[in-house]
């Protein structure tokens, strides 16, 4: 399975925060032949260990959970009222097809009042959270046989191949970066790399970087690189907030980044002619780096990001070249960062 196929199968898998089994099993199976050991921890994080020359322990993290919905009540007409798991722009849910994971998988649609029945002023307002419901085409009694409060609901979206190297789909945040980790692992099988590498497909990032916290505690690395998505440039998005697609992975400069790791990443990228962009970040919030950095005695961290347009919608858009270059960058780092580098991390 090549990277584009992996991206598709991961994206289309159902794995809402807290219920990541399907994509987790998929990636564990993909990593198993390439790693020395693959295990799952108590919360479901997939942790692969790829032995290097023992110069130090590097943790690479990308989260495998996606945002999704959850049944909160079945009303008298059989319509399903739902809660969100992770952050949603409700405007993107109107007229969206979904799958309700009850005793069976049920196909459903998030309804919208037809324009014919709306007053002009109604049409000018965005839909509000409380107005939404899912129609599965069944009467209440039948729905209650098949669905219960707490069942997970996922967004239906097939990956769309766009022109060039670009793809659109759901859950590229952050499964595209799990693909990047896979690209890195593939490269690591071909070289004798200095660092021992723990690749972690983390769970529950979307609800508070929870999987990262416990996996960092358990792995107890010397250093870590979190890999997540960042915003792609788009009209109306300020120049410092959006990055070019196809221009290479983005390396963060900010409180989430150890200055020496930043320099080393730039150095290995320049040497291996890997294109990259730099992002000035004022806080470590919002990615797995937030939790990893403060695990136990503290972990020297960095954040590498994949530019993505339309984040948290079902048509997140990326350039596959950025995934490949990102994978190369991570592998080069694991290859070249050595014992002296690792020992120098606490020197300020």
């Amino acid at each position, binding site marked *: 399975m090549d990277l584009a196929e992996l991206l598709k199968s991961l994206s289309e898998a159902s794995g809402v925060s807290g219920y990541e089994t399907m994509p987790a099993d998929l990636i564990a199976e993909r990593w198993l032949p390439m790693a020395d050991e693959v295990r799952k921890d108590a919360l479901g994080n997939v942790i692969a260990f790829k032995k290097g020359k023992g110069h130090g322990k590097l943790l690479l993290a990308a989260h495998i959970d996606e945002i999704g919905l959850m049944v909160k009540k079945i009303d008298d007409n059989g319509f399903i009222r739902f809660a969100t798991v992770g952050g949603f722009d409700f405007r993107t849910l109107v007229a969206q097809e979904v799958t309700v994971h009850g005793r069976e998988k049920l196909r459903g649609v998030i309804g919208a009042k037809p324009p014919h029945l709306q007053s002009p002023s109604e049409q000018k307002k965005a839909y509000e959270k409380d107005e939404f419901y899912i129609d599965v085409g069944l009467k209440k009694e039948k729905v209650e046989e098949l669905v219960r409060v707490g069942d997970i609901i996922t967004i239906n979206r097939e990956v769309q191949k766009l022109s060039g190297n670009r793809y659109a789909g759901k859950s590229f945040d952050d499964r595209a970066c799990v693909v990047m980790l896979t690209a890195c692992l593939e490269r690591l099988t071909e070289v004798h790399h200095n660092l021992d590498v723990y690749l972690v497909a983390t769970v529950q990032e979307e609800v508070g970087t929870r999987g990262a916290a416990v996996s960092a505690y358990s792995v107890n690395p010397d250093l870590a690189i979190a890999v997540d998505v960042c915003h792609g440039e788009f009209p109306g998005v300020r*120049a410092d907030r959006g990055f070019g697609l196809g221009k290479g992975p983005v390396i963060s400069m900010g*409180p989430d980044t150890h200055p020496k790791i930043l320099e080393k990443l730039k150095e290995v990228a320049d040497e291996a002619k890997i294109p990259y962009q*730099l992002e*000035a970040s*004022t806080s470590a919030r919002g990615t797995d780096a937030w939790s990893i950095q403060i695990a*136990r005695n*503290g972990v020297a961290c960095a954040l590498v990001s994949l530019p993505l347009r339309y984040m948290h919608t079902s048509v997140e858009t990326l350039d596959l070249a950025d995934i490949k270059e990102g994978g190369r960058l991570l592998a080069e780092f694991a290859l070249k960062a050595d014992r002296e580098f690792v020992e120098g991390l606490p*020197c*300020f």
Partner: protein
Amino acid sequence: MFLKELSEARGVSSREHEVRDLIREYITPHVDEVFNDSLGNLYGVKGKDKPGPKVMLAAHMDEVGLMITTIEKNGLLRFQPVGGIDPRVLVSKPVYIGKDKVVGVIGAKAIHLQRPEERTQVLGFDDLYIDIGAVDDDSAKKLVKPGDVATFATSFGEMGDLVVGKAFDDRAGCTALVELTKLEFNCPVYFVFTVQEEVGLRGAGPAAYRVGPDVCLVLEGTTASDVAGTDEEGYSTTVGAGPAVSVMDRSVIAHPKVVGRLFRLAEEHGVPIQNKRTITGGTDAGAISLSREGVPTAPIAVPCRYIHSPVTVMSKSDLEHMIKLVELFVHDIADKGVDFE
């Protein structure tokens, strides 16, 4: 006292180098061991093998500042805050950027050019620019780059009975901690200078995890609003009335026995002390108190007016009294133990 040098040293969260180097220089002759961890926290250890409870005293090295995010074609710089800054304090102030202290000013449209309704609007971060005098982006890029951080260009000075400067939060705490390293105690003491407090109490948790103390005091600079326009109940703390001890804030409920002890010692030895009378804000105590199985902790602070702005104002006597009270506390701990249920 090192307050002037520490106040003028530049160390925005995650870029604390200058402050760290200065402190390391000051404390090395007075402690047994000095080291860093990979987040940049600085540790000074004294009396590691002495019997008695392990005491941790902490102060954070970082200050709030600005980070350059992009350089516009016209040579002006866009920026975002690092830590909590009210954008209203920024207009018309000078700043120093980067290692080379490139000078910039935060300008705004002249009042003559504004419509009446514009004059009542708050200028937010998206409306402000730093001007370093560059004619275009190419010449700007020779001097600064995105990711560089800027500090307020404030010089330390005496002002009436008080002193004015930037970053008394928490260079006041750092100064106190440096002075305390000169003293001798009968129990192990860990002097910890933390990083990145202003962006989420980041350095303190891992530091406490590493040290594993039995008790901790966090030395801070805190808000004082004993000024015109504030009702007495909103003062929080009063400048000149002594160090302020928090019973509670958003990050921690100070351990009652630590707080009680501080008040008792203050009374016994005639050291002025006050309650911090608001419960907003947070300090490293929040992260430290929840480390491992929990650490009895309390924040003690020098009252500072206009905190997180270019011109903070405090009293040197409050700082001296804070140092005295912390000294008494550590001696008392070494003498009588931690005694928490």
